[in-house]
């Protein structure tokens, strides 16, 4: 078994300070928190939309690559984003 196919069983959940939603007026996903808002770019939004407290990291990657087959292997980018998101406390791991 090589590293690339090893399953990442960590399950990200949304941080308790944040609410995630689609904003029609912004045409973007956003994170809302006390008196503030982060407007997410498309890829960040698509990743967080799959953070449901059920899917693990590998499942999130698989779902995204299925949705955007032309994008190639996204797993590295996804991991990188999840790391940033954890630092920002947008997500946490269960």
């Amino acid at each position: 078994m090589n590293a690339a196919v090893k399953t990442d069983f960590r399950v990200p959940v949304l941080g308790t300070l944040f609410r995630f939603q689609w904003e029609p007026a912004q045409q973007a996903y956003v994170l809302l928190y006390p008196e503030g808002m982060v407007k997410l770019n498309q890829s960040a939004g698509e990743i967080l939309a799959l953070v449901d407290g059920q899917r693990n990291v590998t499942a999130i990657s698989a779902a995204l690559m299925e949705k955007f087959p032309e994008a190639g292997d996204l797993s590295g980018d996804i991991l990188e984003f999840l790391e940033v998101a954890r630092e920002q406390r947008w997500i946490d791991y269960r």
Partner: protein
Amino acid sequence: MSNAGSTTANALARTKTHGQPLWLLAELTYKCPLQCPYCSNPLDFAGAGEELSTEEWISVFRQAREMGAAQLGFSGGEPLVRQDLERLIAEARKLGYYTNLITSGIGLSGERIAAFREAGLDHIQVSFQASDEEVNNMLAGSKKAFQQKLKIAREVKAQGYPMVLNFVTHKHNIDQIDRIIELCVELEADYVELATCQYYGWAYENREQLLPTKAQLERAERITNEYREKLKAEGNPIRLIFVTPDYYEERPKKCMNGWGEIFLTVTPDGTALPCHSARMLPIEFPNVKDQSIDAIWNESNGFNYFRGDEWMQEPCRSCDEKEQDHGGCRCQAYMMTGDMHAADPVCGKSPDHGKILAAREAAELDTNGQPITYRNERNSKVFAESSRVFARSG
């Protein structure tokens, strides 16, 4: 990837030079149970008519939401006085707002906190007026008079809300910032806002007693930084936000992230303002009872007045920094120069900058022992905070 406040993705069909309202502050009532002798009597507000009804508020929420508002703050006076607050929260949440309750905590019970939760309230901010007798008691070591507020703060956390604690600091308490921070840590606040008050309105009158000295500010900021590092090392996620008064800057702050760019305040009687403080200006502002939010935001004279730079005078008009600060705060310019079109005197290029320098000098004089007639300054401060929070997430 986080570019909050950008309006590039504006989906509105109309092409506009200004942004869309993102932040709606609903001042539900001027009433307040505190009845401080130094607090504004609601009836004193010129032209303050009857409070908007429940249905009128809901209509305001719906219209602003359609235009893109995502944050909704319930404030006052004391918003808890409104018996329909639960209903208003529920409707706002249903519309998709992130709902913030900005309260003194006086008159709040565990049951009502739970009822708000049920209605969908997202966040509660408990404001501690640094001038409050309670805070003074706390700082003086007597926690007794302070119990109600502490109880409410604990209850807010226990019920799972994110909690922002907000302390207004000034000359007489800023030296005890370490104790304020420790209290906030003990209460498990998620965010702590330590802000010197904005010198608008009554606070302007009391400026000499309130404005900390430069040395005091630097010390407080240093202590705050030390706590930040210490708490971070301990793995404590609390965020300390320290805001210095612009009196010690050489360039002003941009008014509310731009006049009529992001913020919309609606007062108890329905008057719409680009900022809480703007009602002091000699401009006629529109009312939600007479016009739609769309017309108010896009077409009214009040909201268009300080958009663009046509209104500017020298030195702002030909200044190469005008995009950055837009000439600074209009209310500050009006208060200090009598002309709301003037450059904000905080700016080193303003011919009135000497007034700021004089205020700094006056702050060095010992005014200890003089009574402070400190009035409830919650809203304008909160608003300034919000603007900053928005800017920070950008």
